[in-house]
């Protein structure tokens, strides 16, 4: 399990490939499923063009809270490994913000745990976004709903 904050741009797929190489030394043949989420900065929000964003966090508490929610996922699903990376500092459109990857024997646990970690991160990890639009800067007031929007379609 690895949790890391990054204050410079990072490449989630490259990070994932590196992590997976180390994981394969320990777990090759054991995991059947990896569920991965990558969150990327958009250049628009609430109808406005966003040029830049600052990600503030609470040093110490953020890492602890991420650790806690990943441990909760390990307790609730049969997971083999997990990787969480999150940007802090100044981010620009198309910059990756968050990477969550979860490995398990079967896909159901991997999907569910990856989703759980993202939702728990969004609602409990102490990060705050301030957006810079053409008209000035503003704090993002709240995150979009997660599970509420995700029901399978009719």
């Amino acid at each position, binding site marked *: 399990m690895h949790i890391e904050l990054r204050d410079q741009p990072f490449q989630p797929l490259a990070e994932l490939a590196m992590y997976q190489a180390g994981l394969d030394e320990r777990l090759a043949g054991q995991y059947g499923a990896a569920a991965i989420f990558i*969150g990327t900065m958009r250049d628009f929000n609430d109808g406005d063009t966003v040029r830049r964003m600052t990600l503030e966090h609470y040093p110490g508490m953020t890492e602890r809270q991420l650790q806690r929610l990943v441990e909760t996922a390990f307790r609730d699903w049969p997971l083999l490994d997990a990787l969480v990376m*999150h940007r802090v500092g100044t981010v620009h459109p198309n910059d990756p913000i968050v990477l969550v990857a979860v490995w398990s024997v079967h896909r159901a646990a991997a999907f569910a745990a990856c989703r759980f970690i993202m939702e728990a991160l*969004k609602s409990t990890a102490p*990060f*705050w976004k301030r957006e810079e639009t053409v008209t000035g800067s503003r704090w993002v007031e709240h*995150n979009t709903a997660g599970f509420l929007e995700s029901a399978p379609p009719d």
Partner: protein
Amino acid sequence: MVVHVKYFASLRDRLGRAGDELETVAGLTVADVWAALHSATPLPPNTLVAVNLEYAELTQSVRDGDEVAFFPPVTGG
């Protein structure tokens, strides 16, 4: 006792500072800490609270040396 108080994000901007050091008598709750520092400013609704880097309730007791943080809803991810 001394309580180390921190503010983040829009709440910090609103208060105009990142924190306070509160010297006070023992036996306060988190809510009392806010009231002692901001008698003119009610705690904004939806404000989240942490004591020593863990989420806490407003009713939690605060001890000497504790770090108490107040912050708006989180927006990471």
